């Protein structure tokens, strides 16, 4: 005879089910996470250990010496300026273009047409292009084609190029093209997350599609768009390849004064220090110091963007 239901049920509910496979998999995924944390910690600790010694206000903000490899004289002020300038300029280009593209794709284009699907796969392919290819594209398209044509138009007969040479603006534009997919995808996701009901409410009140996008959809999507901006900044700050032929300088005696000037750059300087130093051991502290400054700058730019996003979120939650 079966035991009474209550007794049977109590027995069943208190039976421990051991699942060795589940236990093993949980352990494995946890281990993988730990490994990543350990690697990140190791990298940061290594850089901080070797680089902290050379950090000083003079090193971070001071002007670069012609002898860039002497720890006593080295400073990375112009590189900090150059990297910050190219990243901020890039943001100014990539956000409007990327957001516009995403608006077109989600709000206007018909989702099923071959044209939209083609456009989407083009964006995805753009994300997969190696950054050195963007560097070459920037040289061929922005520096030679666009810059060269500008020179021919504005200064005909002038043999010395003004626009048609590597410059801050071309490096920034090249980076903007490279980070476009990041911004487009993040914005598209933000736009798609906005309920259809809000769009319908606006349209049913006699709003045009454009009014609906500007007044209802975009304000809601702003935090998501800023996330795209943050990702783009992080991606671009450490890139060397795209700026290699399009604007970075090995050494400049003064800061860039216009968009058509070249600039010095932290990421590129790391490359210079690790490949061009006459005495690698002697200049190693500068190398690590520069890496620390690059990380700090990337971090600072991210913090600024995150603070802006937090403010926008708070405002959206309060009012709108």
């Amino acid at each position, binding site marked *: 005879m079966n035991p009474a239901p209550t007794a049977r049920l109590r027995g069943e509910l208190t039976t421990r089910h051991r699942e060795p496979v589940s236990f093993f998999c949980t352990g494995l995924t946890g281990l993988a996470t730990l490994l990543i944390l350990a690697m990140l910690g190791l990298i940061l600790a290594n850089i901080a250990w070797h680089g902290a010694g050379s950090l000083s206000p003079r090193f971070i903000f001071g002007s670069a010496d012609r002898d860039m490899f002497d720890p006593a004289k080295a400073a990375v002020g112009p590189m900090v300026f150059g990297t910050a300038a190219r990243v901020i300029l890039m943001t100014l280009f990539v956000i409007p273009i990327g957001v516009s593209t995403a608006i077109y794709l989600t709000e206007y284009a018909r*989702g099923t047409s071959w044209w939209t699907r083609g456009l989407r796969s083009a964006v995805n392919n753009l994300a997969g292009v190696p950054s050195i290819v963007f560097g070459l594209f920037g040289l061929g398209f922005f520096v030679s084609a666009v810059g060269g044509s500008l020179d021919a138009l504005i200064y005909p007969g002038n043999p010395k190029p003004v626009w048609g040479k590597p410059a801050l603006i071309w490096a920034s534009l090249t980076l903007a093209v490279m980070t476009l997919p990041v911004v487009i995808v993040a914005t598209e996701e933000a736009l798609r997350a906005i309920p259809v009901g809000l769009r*319908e409410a606006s349209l049913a009140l*006699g*709003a*045009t599609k454009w009014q609906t996008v500007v007044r209802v959809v975009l304000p809601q999507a702003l935090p998501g768009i800023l996330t795209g901006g943050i990702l783009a900044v992080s991606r671009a700050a450490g890139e060397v390849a795209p700026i290699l032929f399009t604007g970075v300088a090995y050494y400049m005696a003064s800061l860039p004064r216009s968009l058509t000037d070249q600039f010095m750059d932290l990421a590129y300087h790391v490359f210079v220090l690790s490949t061009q130093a006459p005495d690698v051991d002697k200049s190693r502290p500068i190398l690590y110091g520069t890496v620390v400054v690059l990380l700090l700058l990337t971090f600072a730019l991210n913090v600024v963007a995150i603070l802006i996003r937090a403010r926008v979120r708070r405002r959206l939650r309060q009012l709108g």
Partner: protein
Amino acid sequence: MASLSPTVRLQPPAPTDVVTVAHPELITLDRLSLWYGAAQALKDISFGIRERLVTAFIGPSGCGKSTLLRCLNRMNELIEGVRLSGTVRIAGQDIYAPGVDVIELRRRVGMVFQRSNPFPKSVYENIAYALRLQGVRRRRELDEVVEKSLRAAALWDEVKDRLHASALGLSGGQQQRLCIARAIAVQPDILLMDEPASALDPIATAKIEDLILDLKRDYTIVIVTHNMQQAARISDYTAFFYLGELIEYDTTARLFTNPARKQTEDYVTGRFG
């Protein structure tokens, strides 16, 4: 079933002459059919909706009642692959004619949705939204319309002290009444309501129903509802749809107590649907 041929025109019967005079036909549907891609959602629908009365659309899910409602302010156009034949006339004007401005149409024909969808803005800005679209900027004028609309939607007393707080902080029923206030702020002639109370509790539902009875003095109201008691309580005319066809259209009293068709009777008595 032969008598159910969709080409039969069921004229709204007028119980008294007073109704025809005080409530002339405002919306006229003539042989309206609609397809989503290859699937036909509305089949040859013809009838007329009278001014300043409440007309309810009832029928089981998928019968086309919401689709039909969305034909009346051309919201169906937002869906890809929609095709339409026949005509919808409002005050004699074919609203699908080439010269018709859909923006102006939607100002004349307001809409309240099944799920309340206030903008994530303040109560005040929700109501002022449509006016700002039209370029109204004077604070006094906006204040006036906001108060008038909120009063008309029986919401003023509850929100007058929190006009500038987020609309998302209101209760579900308040949000839906806010959406009604937002819709009437543009002073439309017609109000379309797509199951406006289906997500609300009985008390909030009762408030919405009272409000609808109130609003029909000034507006022609077309309401889609799943709730037959609701249709019986608030509507003057009821249209019963089944599988994209208009099965019966009559005064609510007659349709619920003495329906002409077997299908209608089965549905309103709860035997199917």
